[in-house]
């Protein structure tokens, strides 16, 4: 029996991991989100229009989905339906954002795990590999496309309750499309072959991160009807590999419960020993009591089951694996990049169609200040999975605010039944194959693309000690 405590770098947010090894197998795992900033609390008392700008500051990596989830929640609370042109513009920003985030994660953050000195994929080598260096340029290119409409990234300016402040015009659309064409060419010709190679090499070799196929996704990229069932990525829940529902508002959202048995309450700082009953600032959301995983793998899996068991992008095809594992998580993210790069051109077509109608394009509709109480929820997907923002509003101000971010699902601690969170489940039964066990552990964790919803990144480790002393904070 050997204990290892470490803090992975090159992830978003603050996560400390403790594992217990027996021989070359992980037999026990704890993930501890040790962060608290209290963003939800400081949003109270702000106007709904201002709170969207604060919500974006939850995370600098996925600020756009936070803006969009927040603005959706506000609009629902106010009874506003954003105009069709605004929906299309938000989708364009979102496509480009997702492509950026996936390239950043695949090529810069997680990719080097599989390159020398720990792996064999030379192209992903940190600071030297071809895909690493070109990936840096391409994530920039994709984000430029997103910023054409969002004003800037991180922390978009143009997403405002009631629509967007930016106009849809052909010139912007043209420069947007041109950038994504370049990104698409690179993704299909360089990135996908590299990750196919990685998949081929490691999928049989690496016994890592396997867990049951319990997956959840809220779906993302609305069409102008705003019906969740018509999103590009459909909402859905998979239990043990079977799709049990796709009904977002009646069957998925109402059955999400949060467990706080192992979660610090409020400012209960300091009890950071893992032997202590409470060991994380992350809550434990469960769907009907099941531990769920969220992310690109969940999105692709649900979409594949809804479209005859596979997804095709040009010449490449994706089929659900037997069970989720580390390599499948990494590959799903790469494949989804290709899927997005191809589907974004449909959305550009939609935008062109709208321009062709030559009507005056309204992108923002004014709100009326609603007196009295109301509430709203925004359920979308960030790059790393299902994201929920919920607002209780009164007299146009925020009364209370709640965020459940993707990593809340993935890096949750145990619940009251003692069931481990998804990353913890994935760590258990992982086989240590490298000379340094930390390499294998960090691979499992990073494949989930952890983003502790606003990263406070601090970091102390005492290896072999039972205590995690890195107590930090965030929402």
């Amino acid at each position, binding site marked *: 029996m050997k204990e290892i405590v*470490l803090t992975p*770098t*090159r992830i*978003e*947010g603050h996560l400390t991991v403790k594992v217990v090894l027996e021989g070359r197998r992980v037999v026990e795992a704890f993930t501890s989100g040790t962060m608290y*900033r*209290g963003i939800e*609390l*400081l949003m109270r008392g*702000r106007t709904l*229009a*201002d709170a969207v*700008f*604060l919500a974006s*500051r939850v*995370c*600098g*990596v996925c600020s756009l989905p936070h803006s969009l989830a927040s603005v959706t929640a506000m609009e629902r609370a106010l009874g506003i339906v954003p105009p069709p042109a605004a929906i299309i513009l938000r989708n364009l920003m979102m496509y480009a954002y997702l492509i950026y985030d996936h390239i950043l994660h695949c090529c810069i*953050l997680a990719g*080097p795990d599989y390159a020398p000195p720990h792996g064999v994929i030379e192209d992903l080598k940190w*600071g030297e590999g071809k895909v690493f260096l070109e990936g*840096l*340029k391409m*994530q*920039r290119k994709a*984000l*430029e496309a997103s*910023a*054409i*409409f*969002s*004003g*800037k*990234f*991180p*922390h978009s*300016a*143009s997403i*405002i309750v009631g629509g*967007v*402040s*930016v106009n849809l015009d052909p010139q912007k659309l043209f420069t947007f499309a041109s950038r994504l064409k370049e990104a698409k060419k690179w993704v299909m010709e360089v990135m996908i072959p590299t990750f196919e190679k990685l998949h081929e090499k490691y999928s049989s070799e690496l016994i890592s991160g396997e867990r049951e196929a319990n997956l959840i996704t809220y779906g993302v990229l609305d069409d102008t009807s705003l019906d969740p069932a018509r999103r590009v990525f459909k909402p859905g829940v998979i239990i043990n590999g079977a799709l049990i529902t796709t009904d977002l508002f009646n069957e998925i959202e109402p059955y999400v419960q949060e467990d706080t048995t192992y979660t610090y309450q409020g*400012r209960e*700082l300091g009890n950071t020993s893992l032997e202590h009953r409470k060991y994380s600032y992350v809550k434990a959301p469960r769907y009907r009591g099941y531990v769920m995983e969220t992310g690109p793998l969940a999105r692709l899996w649900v979409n594949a089951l809804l479209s005859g068991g596979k997804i095709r992008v040009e010449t490449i095809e994706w089929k659900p694996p037997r069970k989720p594992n580390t390599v499948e998580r990494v590959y799903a993210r790469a494949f989804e990049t290709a899927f997005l790069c191809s589907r974004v051109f449909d959305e550009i077509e939609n935008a062109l169609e709208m321009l062709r109608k030559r009507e005056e394009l309204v992108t*923002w509709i*004014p709100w009326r200040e609603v007196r009295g109480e109301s509430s709203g929820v925004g359920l979308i997907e960030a790059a790393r999975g299902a994201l929920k923002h919920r607002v209780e509003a009164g007299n146009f101000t925020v009364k209370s605010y709640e965020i459940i971010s993707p990593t809340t699902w993935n890096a949750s601690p145990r619940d009251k039944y003692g069931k481990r969170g998804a990353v913890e489940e994935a760590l258990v039964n992982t086989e240590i194959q490298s000379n340094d066990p930390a*390499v294998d552990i960090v691979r499992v964790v990073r494949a989930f693309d952890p983003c502790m919803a*606003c*990263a*406070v*990144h*601090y*970091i*102390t*480790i*005492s290896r072999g000690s039972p205590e995690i*002393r890195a*107590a*930090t*904070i965030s929402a």
Partner: protein
Amino acid sequence: MKELKILWLQGQGCSGCSISLLQSSYPSLEEFVETSLRELKININFHPLFMPLNFLDEGGISKLLCDPQSDNFLFIIEGSIPTRDSDKNLTLHIEGEEIPFAKYIEKISLKALAVMAVGTCASFGGINALDPDLTGARGVREILGSNHRSRKGLPVINVPGCPPHPDWILGTLLDIILYILDIGTPIELDEYNRPKRFYARTVHESCPLAGFFSETIFAKKFGEQGCLLALGCKGPVAYGDCPERKWNGGVSSCMISGSVCIGCTEPGFPREFMPFIYYPPKPLPLIFPPPASVVQLYGLYGRSMWEELLKKKTRLGGQA
């Protein structure tokens, strides 16, 4: 060849400043770190997102610095520093001892050639310091004291913005490096220790919509052409050259995308700048000529009044 190390630490933040830095196009970050100036090689030794190191083990960051040879480094901090429960909150190991983040920063800053606070959180506390301010979030200068000077005699240099423009970060870094090499001009700072190179003028002064302001054409709703002052734009009272520099490879900026400036480079952000958006729009008095006086009557205060107000309200107290 001598090596200049860069140590980039994150406090309470969202990594937005790091992501902004990754978006720098010319030079790109990867190009910047390969640069050699005179006999100096620039090397990012620690950055939580941008480094080859896989994970941190015992000794962690301090191992990179405890080496007596290794005090040839610049210290960059992103994110605010918690002062409440600071012994339990954000602690770090140094020479086998566990100390609060604030103490760690004090200790490391003594050895650093220069200390730079990147982003509004690290500069002034930023969004984390918004009431109820649960964690007692503070900026670096407040932790070190406004009289702090680095080994090269530089005060804490603030590069605020939520996020700061990558040019501001790399440009200031370059200025600092040139200063260290004794080949640059002195770094001119304003009273909040922001480099004047980037923060000397208001956002309004370089705003592409400023022409509408002088023609008194004001947008009454979003998506309409015109100056956005009536909808809540804080451009006249926020400092920074972002509208002319533009973001993400120069594709857009807040006002170009039709949205308002929310004053994210200022010590009072976000507290003093809310509501960000005025809707229904605040009616503007039609006085000619419009500048300063309109802004003042309008309730946004003129430049000097604004500075007075900030001195009173911020904890910095306007110390030089």
